[in-house]
């Protein structure tokens, strides 16, 4: 009974309901949508945004934001292919991607945590710098299917039953992160910092270290996620990852991770990413004319955000941290 009650008042419930509603709607309009291949499509399309949304959650709950993820993931997806094509192998490529992600995350984290600069500005600057460096590095070259490490290509193309491996990677990440957020004290501190930084400081939480850690983690995660992007598209060029950050943030918000910080879970973000993708697919499945689709997309996201806010203003938050603790 307690579990049931917990499920019903869970913060993620609105998102989940919305997701089910959208999928049903699409299924009624176009039954093939509900088939196994329809599901595979959504899951495959969601993988990248879902992974990035999970990482972004760590940052947003602390009232920060990381806008550099689009440029970074585009860069590392290109980098992995490029290094492999030059003969250094898969591990070298992954190592480089991780290194780049760590560097960007560390710089972002340092500037935000220790110099106390606003994260929107810092990561916006990082967005530009990384994109510029990436463009110079890539300059007109493309990573083609032949240049993708076969292991990555294989993961990108294959599935367990109907579930793409890429999605399984994302899902595992969400599960692990969810557990970490609930059980590891350092992660739970993030919620305290987001709710009330001054109080968190007074409570003895090493705020700067946590903030730095979150950005570092998000950077590393995004860097490695370049492999997922490469596996998904089997190609990369200077435009990879463009404007992805806004979609990631929208996914988090729709999933209940409020911009004001202090609440929301990685599960919500994950579901939010799936919901956004489902909305896009539904619009197509409903046969809405091409030129109306983007407008509908925007309108539905607004509704999703409003819906989530409405329902969550009625859900009791039992702890000051607002996490799914009680």
């Amino acid at each position, binding site marked *: 009974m307690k579990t049931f009650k917990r499920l019903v008042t869970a913060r993620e419930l609105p998102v989940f309901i919305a997701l089910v509603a959208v999928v049903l709607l699409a299924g009624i309009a176009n039954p093939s949508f509900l088939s196994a291949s329809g599901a595979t499509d959504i899951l495959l399309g969601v993988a990248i945004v879902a992974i990035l949304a999970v990482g972004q959650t760590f940052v947003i709950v602390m*009232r*920060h*934001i990381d806008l550099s993820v689009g440029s970074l993931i585009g860069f590392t997806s290109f980098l992995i292919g490029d290094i492999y094509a030059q003969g250094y192998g898969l591990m070298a490529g992954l190592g480089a991607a991780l290194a780049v992600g760590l560097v960007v995350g560390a710089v972002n984290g340092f*500037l935000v945590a220790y*110099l*106390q*600069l*606003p*994260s*929107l*500005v*810092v990561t*916006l*600057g*990082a*967005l*530009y*710098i*990384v*994109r*510029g*460096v990436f*463009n*110079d590095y890539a*300059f007109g070259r493309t990573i083609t299917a032949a240049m993708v490490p076969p292991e990555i290509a294989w993961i990108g193309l294959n599935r367990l039953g109907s579930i793409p491996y890429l999605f399984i990677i994302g899902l595992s990440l969400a599960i692990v992160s969810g557990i970490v957020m609930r059980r590891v004290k350092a992660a739970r501190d993030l919620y305290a910092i987001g709710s009330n*930084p*001054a109080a968190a400081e007074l409570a003895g939480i090493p705020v700067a270290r946590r903030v730095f850690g979150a950005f570092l983690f998000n950077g590393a995660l995004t860097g490695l996620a370049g492999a997922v992007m490469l596996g998904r598209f089997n190609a990369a060029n200077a435009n990879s990852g463009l*404007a992805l950050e*806004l979609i990631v*943030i*929208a996914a988090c*918000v729709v999933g209940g991770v*409020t*911009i*004001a910080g202090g609440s929301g879970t990685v599960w919500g973000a994950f579901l939010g990413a799936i919901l956004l993708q489902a909305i896009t697919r539904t619009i197509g499945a409903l046969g809405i004319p091409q*030129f*109306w*689709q*983007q*407008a*509908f*997309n*925007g*309108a539905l*996201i*607004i509704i999703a*955000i*409003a819906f989530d*806010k409405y329902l969550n203003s009625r859900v009791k938050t039992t702890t000051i941290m607002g996490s799914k603790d009680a």
Partner: protein
Amino acid sequence: MRRWNFSWDKGVGIFLIVAVMIGTLLSDNFANASNLSFVLRDVTEFAIIALAMTFLIISGEIDLSVASALNLSSASLGFLYRAGVPFELAIIGGLLVGLACGLFNGYLVTKLGLPSLAVTIATLALYRGLSYVLLGNQPVNELPEFWISIGYGRILGTFLPWSTILLVVLAAIAWFVLHHTRYGRWTFAIGVNAEAARFSGIPVERTKLMLFAMTGLMAGVAGVVYTLRFASASPDGAVGYELSIIAAVLFGGVSIAGGVGTMWGVIAAVLSLGVIRSALQLTGFTANSLLIVSGALLLISVIAPKITEALRKRPSALGKDNTKKTIREVGNEKPTH
């Protein structure tokens, strides 16, 4: 007996002058009238929207949909004209559409209480989508000669583009309102502490709604300028402008946390970025380098004041803002975002 504070907006002014000097040194083609007119024409749309965005960010909100609103105004203008409406009326139609975009954003934020960052990402998609609804895949490209020559041409005999007059007038008004009227004071007050402002009797929600509306209207004006300059209205114009506008406003010394900033810092910032881009371009740097420079400038714009502040060891509450007429509560520290 006021010591001359180093505040970032003065820094930007100096930066602008230095940028012009460097540009002159680096390239022969930089410092002449025709290049200046190119730079002015390029920055006009950004500058117009930046004027309104300054108010919005100072008040603690943000609007990521401005580029889409600009384009929707442009698309509406084209749509009306193609439907047979006289061009002058179509222009008014475009402006009204921009205003409507701003009002809708404002409604979502003030009445429904949705966070502006998130909701304007959604309206970004909505407004762009509506541009496609209006124009489909047919850009409108046969606009009246007279208007195009205003959009693209220069004032007779000089190097100044017509659109610069518009910009100067709007900038003067914006500067005056922000720094010398109570609406400007309210904006700062709301940005510093919305609750305290409300208790002081300031109509917070209404003011914010107005600010969003103004931002939308300015996007509409910029949309009209854009349409005339490019002699066409297309559903996919002005993509990605919002981040550049916000970057310029931030570079101009407006704090993202709200409550701090000056109009002329922003104007200097917009001009500087245009000047730098031109200087780099004429010196042979690629467009990629410009991205890196923009990012670096943005970072410097927030790091430098921190460093000077640390050097002076002054409490941050009074550090770098416009101390003239703001309702400030010393010791009321805003958490950094």
